[in-house]
């Protein structure tokens, strides 16, 4: 188990800044997920950690020791790529044993370790199959076994589940993260799947525009996002309400809400659909304009004159199209963000 510290890592491509003085620590044995919109340098950061790319400036410390000058083959920071990259001309056993073979371990030691690793990922006895004979989930598990076989100091997962269908994804997530916990290996997971990051990581780091926006445990990142950018990561059908804070009160077309200790000025409130409660009400001013059934939740698009809102309801409530409803908005002061002034992009 080692602790990773990134110290002001910067990287540019073609004069475009991808990473700007990123500082981040990952505790020993921790699973940290890296979240953020596409093109924010998440994969670049993994490659810098693995030694496949060099940072323009800054340092990387494994247990306090700089590894920036260490070539990838000596770093033991294994990157598992999104498309697994199992060597197609080698068998499963040869793939898993590859790193050990490169380290010149004896054939019998390699064989033992390979069968151990395959057992760990529940693929015992597949040594002699070729990658082309495996399903997506099996390839994923072989890639993991191959990475773990060399007892890496750091495991780097680049969107490991994005190529799997939903059902398989869930069982693979359970398996992979259970193994990570069992081996207590320091792991960085890059993902687009915010639900995955919320459910499985010890802490999350949100990257945007090459800067770390927030690092915290998942619940706090979800409940108290540090910026509008972070709040926007979670879920769809989110409502954005413009308003202003005067005397610790948020004023908008929805009415007045407590704004905590926010300073006066223009603000935008993020209202997630589950914060909008609907009640059937014959005299209600809102009408259901669209209904999207999504199993555990049903989403309603409601309108009142030119105003529109998204609401989500648990399955036991039911509204139909054109039903009249009244609403309660549970606005939360933590989800109020200063509105970008003109000229600044949101």
């Amino acid at each position, binding site marked *: 188990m080692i602790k990773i510290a990134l110290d002001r890592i910067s990287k540019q491509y073609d004069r475009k800044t991808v990473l700007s003085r990123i500082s981040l620590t990952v505790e020993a044995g921790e699973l940290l997920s890296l979240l953020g919109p596409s093109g924010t340098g998440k994969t670049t950061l993994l490659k810098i950690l693995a*030694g496949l790319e060099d940072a323009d400036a800054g340092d990387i410390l494994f247990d306090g020791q700089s590894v920036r000058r260490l070539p990838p083959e000596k770093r*033991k920071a*294994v990157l598992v*790529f999104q498309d697994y990259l199992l*060597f197609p001309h080698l068998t499963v056993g040869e793939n898993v044993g590859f790193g050990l073979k*490169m380290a010149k371990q004896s054939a019998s030691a390699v064989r033992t370790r390979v069968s151990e690793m395959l057992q760990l990922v529940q693929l015992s006895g597949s040594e002699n199959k070729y990658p082309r004979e495996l399903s997506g989930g099996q390839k994923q598990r072989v890639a993991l076994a191959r990475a773990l076989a*060399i007892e890496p100091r750091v495991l780097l997962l680049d969107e490991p589940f994005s190529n799997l269908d939903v059902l398989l994804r869930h069982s693979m997530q359970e398996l992979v993260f259970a193994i990570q916990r069992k081996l207590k290996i320091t792991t960085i997971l890059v993902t687009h799947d915010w639900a995955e990051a919320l459910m499985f990581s010890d802490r999350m780091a949100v990257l945007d525009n090459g800067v770390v926006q927030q690092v915290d445990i998942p619940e706090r990142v979800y409940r108290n996002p540090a910026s509008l950018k972070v709040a926007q990561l979670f879920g769809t059908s989110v409502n954005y309400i413009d308003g202003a804070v005067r005397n610790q009160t948020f004023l908008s077309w929805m009415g007045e809400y407590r704004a905590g200790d926010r300073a006066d000025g223009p603000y935008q409130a993020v209202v997630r659909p589950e914060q909008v409660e609907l009640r059937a009400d014959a005299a209600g001013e809102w009408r259901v304009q669209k209904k999207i059934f999504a199993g555990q939740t049903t989403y309603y698009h409601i309108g009142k004159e030119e105003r529109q809102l998204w609401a989500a309801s648990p399955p036991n409530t039911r509204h139909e199209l054109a039903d009249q409803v009244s609403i309660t908005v549970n606005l939360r002061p933590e989800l109020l963000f200063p509105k970008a002034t003109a000229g600044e992009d949101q």
Partner: protein
Amino acid sequence: MKFWSKAFLVLALALLALPFAGLLLWSLAGEWPWPQLVPATVSFRGWTAFAAMAEKFLEAIVTSGLLSSAVTLLCLLVSLPAARALAYYQFAGKRLIEIFFISPLLAPVMSIAMGVHMQFIRLGLADTLPGVMLIHLFSCLPYGILILRDALLAVGSQWEDQAKVLGASRWQAARYIVLPLLAPGLVAASVMVFIVSFSEYILTFIIGGGKIVTFSLLIFPYLQGGDRNISSVLSIIFLLVILLWILVLELLARRYTGQGRFFHL
């Protein structure tokens, strides 16, 4: 298979087979009066003439085979790093360098040979095997670099990265992962380069000064002389040597990348 796919396949086969069939017929033709589709009489004149001179030709075939094999090997050794740089790295002036690499294909061989000849005489390379190899290498490099660059692009650099993070040194990654995956491209480049070198006439003639007698040098007068029997026989031999080369390469590649053969646990 769809009808059109089949039709095109047949057409392609016919385009390949017909000239070869023509060669075969001419090598065995005795009298072949004008309107007839096949020769009137069979004659082994071409083949017996060849058999009579077989020793001389065999010597040239061996010279050519060794020369072209060496050129191919050298060419791949030089092309691979260059192709890798062009495929995987971005750098200023990359387009210019690519054009520079292709330029031997664009300039007339004759003018290049004349220009280089004087230098080679000064350097003592004219009329020598190394000189001929060098000039062959020059005309082969564009093929080697371009084919390998495209093959490397198709394979991608991610395999080397994956091997390295698993602890493979640069050489281990090349030997166990990249080269086996690149094998089809290496075979294609070797075949092309070998053919270019094996068929080279004018450069061998000028730089070798007639001292280095390759197979193409030897058969050229017969092709020009208009004896269709003998030139057909020689062309067939020429084709067979190249086919043999392709076969050997394929076998080598298969042996190198074959299932469970190169990487025993």
